[in-house]
């Protein structure tokens, strides 16, 4: 199982600018669906690319599903040339997302984030309303059940706060 807290701590310690999105963002809000990878949207500033590349390098990242002997150089230049990376590391699976379908880049998502704290690790997490909006905009059939759960979660949360 992916070491979610460990990966978040590594990113935080390296001062990587990122936003928690996807399944673990849903878990942070209270969803019950199981997920096996960590999804983060990262800021594509040159300095952040260096921090992100250096933070994950000790975890020997490689492209998930690619042949083991396929050469893959993990550095800031690779990050700059690409956008979204689905990676396997020694700490588990992590999706490094430069632009999220239906949501845009780091800066677009920033106004829709909340601070969450997981075992002493403080990070930005996409807000529940925006998480639903992004999943709807992405238009993937596989997300419909997740959207239904997140919408119910939003209703329950609002009812609890009234």
């Amino acid at each position, binding site marked *: *199982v*992916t070491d*979610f*807290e460990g990966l978040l701590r590594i990113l935080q310690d390296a001062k990587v600018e990122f936003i928690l999105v996807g399944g*673990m963002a849903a*878990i*942070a809000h*209270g*969803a*019950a669906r*199981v*997920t*096996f990878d960590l999804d983060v949207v990262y800021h594509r500033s040159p300095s952040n690319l260096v921090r992100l590349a250096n933070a994950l390098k000790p975890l020997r990242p490689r492209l998930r599903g690619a042949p083991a002997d396929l050469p893959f150089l993990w550095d800031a230049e690779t990050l700059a040339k690409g956008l979204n990376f689905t990676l396997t590391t020694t700490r588990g699976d992590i999706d490094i997302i430069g632009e999220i379908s239906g949501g845009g880049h780091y800066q677009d998502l920033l106004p829709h984030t909340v601070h*969450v*704290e*997981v*075992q002493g690790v403080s990070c930005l997490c996409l807000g529940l309303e925006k998480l639903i909006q992004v999943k*709807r905009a992405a238009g993937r059939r596989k997300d*419909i*059940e997740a*959207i*239904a*759960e997140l*919408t*119910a*979660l939003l209703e*329950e*949360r609002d009812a*609890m706060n009234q």
Partner: protein
Amino acid sequence: MTNADTSADDNSLDAEIDAFKKDVDRTLLRENLKLTVTQRFQKHRQVARFAEKLRNAAQITRGAE
């Protein structure tokens, strides 16, 4: 795509989401909402470990067939 098309798509999506919403375990969500984020992560880790064990067991069973 016209506004009418977009609206029809939205309505269709809403109908599908509503259909799935009926099966959502709201008791579980209410329980989760009472937890801290750390507790939600811990709970998820336990479930994910169990799910992975099941997945591995299923692979072993398929391999033995």
